[in-house]
């Protein structure tokens, strides 16, 4: 049978506030175990939480960027369950009155724009980290690191509007871009600052009722999200095709084995006994403050993409790639502001620059070539000072040494030879030295011309103006 896949995502993102959600401890990642702790985040008897105002601000900012309604009256609740990474054995979270509801974001898949609904955005505290001595099942003991306990989290829940693993990935990428644009999270999946759980079910094409869902956990990378959901959709289809029924359960993605495995059934699910957190007062969110935050929002990915297309005539694809990360879009804007031609800048950034970044495993923020330097290089090329090929050589050197393009060109004598007299002499010399190739060209072998060009470039160490070389060769053969 043909099935429709129905997916909803629950994303947790760590907010990049300096201090934790309910105490003054640092949120820095990678500190020595149990050093970013105090009586409050350790949940010692007698302590009380106090909300970090920055967390509320970041949550409102996120809600607005995701086109949500900000609830004027919001509160925290306790989610009760026992786990050793949770010192109080309850998580302070939000239940029935989250800070933001009813939003959406648009994703582009296979050239089509699709709107994915956002059910809610809520604030909560992160748990600590368990370090098992060996595997969880066989460990003799387990250590707890409470550094992460109380790091602020936002949970962003989508509507079940996603129809494929590819859409899920696009949603996640867009969400990550927005969160980075508004500067609330680093969104580093490998450090756990962006985590994703997925609910997935199947239903026969045309059916409107939802099928029984499975919740997939442990999707620790964009690739895992896509692969995990593809696998689970196939698994469920097989079960249904064989006349079986989907069991409502929580499953875990095993990246190494490439499959999902059952963690616990619905019957084993927790009763979280949510109730209003009595140690925190409800939040009354002032609408003037919300509007101030709305006004302070930066240009978001969709608007920026549209601007790049309109202002610079970039293609939708190019503008989309550049605006997928705020840092890359900022780099682009800075390069253009420094005088570079926009299309050339886009080509450089998406081409050479990205290739170098990927090879070095670096983020664009760590790029050794500054936007102004790139603009200067593009300018040298536009003015004909260097050829396109030489420009790549110069870029290589700029990447390695951090020097300006003009300096490298001067030091290494890489200025393009565009003086006709100078080039003519070399062209004639090469023609004289290669009668066979000349004859081949005259006999109709276009490739022979390429050989002759190559010989001229060799003579000039690549500096001869290629257009001029071509023109002069054709004139003289």
């Amino acid at each position, binding site marked *: 049978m043909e099935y429709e896949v129905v997916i909803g995502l629950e994303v947790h993102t760590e907010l990049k506030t300096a201090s934790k959600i309910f105490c003054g401890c640092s949120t820095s990642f990678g500190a020595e175990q149990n050093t970013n702790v105090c009586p409050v985040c350790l*949940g*010692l*008897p007698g302590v009380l939480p106090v909300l970090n105002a920055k967390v509320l601000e970041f949550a409102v900012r996120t809600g607005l960027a995701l086109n949500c309604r900000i609830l004027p009256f919001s509160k925290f609740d306790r989610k*009760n369950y026992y786990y050793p990474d949770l010192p*109080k054995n309850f998580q302070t979270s939000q239940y029935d009155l989250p800070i933001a509801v009813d939003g959406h974001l648009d994703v582009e898949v296979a050239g089509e724009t699709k709107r994915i609904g956002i059910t809610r955005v809520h604030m909560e505290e992160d748990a600590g980290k368990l370090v098992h001595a060996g595997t969880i099942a066989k460990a003799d003991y*387990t250590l*707890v690191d409470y550094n992460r306990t109380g790091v602020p989290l936002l949970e962003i829940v989508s509507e079940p509007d996603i129809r494929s693993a590819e859409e899920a990935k696009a949603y996640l990428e867009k969400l990550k871009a927005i969160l980075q644009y508004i500067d609330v999270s680093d969104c580093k999946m490998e450090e756990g600052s962006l985590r994703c759980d997925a609910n997935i079910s199947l239903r026969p094409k045309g059916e409107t009722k939802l099928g029984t869902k499975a919740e997939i956990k442990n999707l620790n990378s964009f690739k895992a999200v896509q692969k995990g959901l593809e696998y689970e959709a196939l698994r469920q289809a097989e079960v249904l095709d064989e006349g079986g029924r989907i069991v409502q359960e929580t499953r875990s993605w095993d990246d190494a084995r490439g499959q999902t495995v059952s963690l616990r059934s619905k019957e084993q699910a927790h009763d979280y006994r949510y*109730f209003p957190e009595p140690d925190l*007062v409800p939040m009354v969110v002032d609408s003037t403050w919300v509007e101030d935050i709305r006004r302070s929002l930066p240009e978001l990915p969709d608007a920026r993409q549209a601007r790049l297309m309109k202002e610079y005539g970039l293609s939708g694809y190019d503008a989309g790639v550049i605006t997928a990360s705020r840092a890359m879009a900022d780099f682009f804007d800075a390069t253009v502001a420094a005088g570079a031609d926009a299309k050339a800048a886009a080509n450089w950034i998406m081409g050479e620059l990205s290739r170098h970044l990927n090879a070095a495993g670096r983020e664009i923020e760590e790029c050794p070539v500054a936007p102004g330097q790139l603009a200067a290089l593009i300018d040298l090329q536009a003015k004909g000072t260097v050829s396109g090929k030489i420009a790549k050589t110069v870029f290589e050197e700029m990447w390695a040494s951090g020097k300006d393009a003009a300096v490298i060109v001067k030091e290494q004598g890489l200025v393009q030879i565009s003086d006709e007299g100078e080039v003519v002499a070399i062209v004639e010399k090469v023609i004289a030295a290669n009668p066979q190739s000349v004859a081949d060209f005259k006999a109709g072998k276009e490739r022979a011309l390429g050989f002759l060009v190559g010989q001229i470039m060799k003579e000039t160490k690549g500096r001869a103006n290629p257009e001029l070389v071509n023109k002069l060769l054709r004139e003289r053969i």
Partner: protein
Amino acid sequence: MELYKQTAHELHAKLAAKEVSAAEITAAVFDRIDTVEGKVRAYITQTRDLAMAQAKAADEKIARGEAIAPLAGIPGALKDNMCVKGVKTTCASQILANFVPPYDSTVAEKLAAADAVVVGKANLDEFAMGSSCENSSFFPTRNPWDTAAVPGGSSGGSAAAVAAAEAVWALGSDTGGSIRQPAAYCGVVGLKPTYGRVSRYGLVAYASSLDQIGPITRDVTDCALVLAAIAGHDGRDSTSIDAPVPDYSKALVPDARGLKIGLPKEYFVAGMDPAVEKAVYAAIDQLKAMGAEYKEVSMPHTEYALATYYLIATAEASSNLARFDGVGFGHRGEGNDIVAMYKRSRTEGFGEEVRRRIMLGTYALSSGYYDAYYLKALKVRTLIKQDFDRAFGEVDVLVAPIAPTTAFKVGEKVDDPLAMYLQDVCTVPINLAGLPAISLPCGFAGGLPIGLQIIGRPLGEETILRAAYAFEQANDYHRRQAPLGEV
């Protein structure tokens, strides 16, 4: 009179006049403890070294001619559910039998800043759950007026220490009457402030939306002094009220002219000791004679208060006490896996009443029962608050009994939790409404003190202190001494 029998304001005058030193007062209190503690058993921990060091520091300040706070150099006790850095804080529970907090509660910090002297940590019903101090997992405290009787609870150790002159002042905590009822049973003054008036930071939570710390003292004047020392906004407690702390001493005037007092008739429940009822009515007559206006008011939802209280308090407690799991602190039981460890730790660590309340609260919050129990209780709580709002539209204070009887005998109610819960019938509505209320002696029956409750509007501490002071000054109940040790 012996130093240990005097009030804080009397001792302060003598300290300021350099007639006596803080070290002498503190030593006298410890001598008294040595003499009577064997009969009373008010203390879980005595902090002699700390107290003597604090007394010495206060004396040095006085010697340097510096101005001293009213409680400087005056010895008192903290209920053992308030954290004092480096001092064992047990909540009278096996699960915290060896817990030493690495931080100070806000009240401990404020008292230290006022140069007060802390002589020890007072006994209580385990995690403040109880009305007799018999739920302490260590030992029961006895009533100094009759050592066969309970001191009340849960702040039984604090009230008994003050009544037995083993402390000049004490702090208790009141979730459903836990300051007022033991104060009444022990013939001393106890005040539960408005919810949020005193920071709860460092008070080991029983029921967060009801808990409040307050003073237990020998007279109303001392009550005002201790309240002033501990009240005020605290950035570490989100529920603390950001309002200036008045000079409560200025409210203490010995008349009741123009004061409108109301009597909620629903507080005179069936089974009330006629002597208690008589004493409360006599007190009202006295206040009237001093110029107060009087009227009866109706609080129709009073009868639901006890059930409401036992749902909300236990629900919050079930969550607050979840952290005692043997992982990070407190008693750890042996187990082959984490769940077994949780179970052993909690079964071994908690007493019967605490386990009962955790189970009640867990049930009330469970899926499928939440609406019928917890949510309904929240709605009734609102109705109870509205009863008070209406009444305070007509009167300035409400006057009522504290408990239906005087102190009962040790062991009398231990096997009947419901009878024990009924002890709180006159006190829990005040916690549900977050109001201030004071308890002070208004008579004796069979040699045991009777408590009078005066309830005020939110932040109406000055008004109830004034009414209490007027009544106190017209009588001599506060000067009577428990016979203990004198026999």
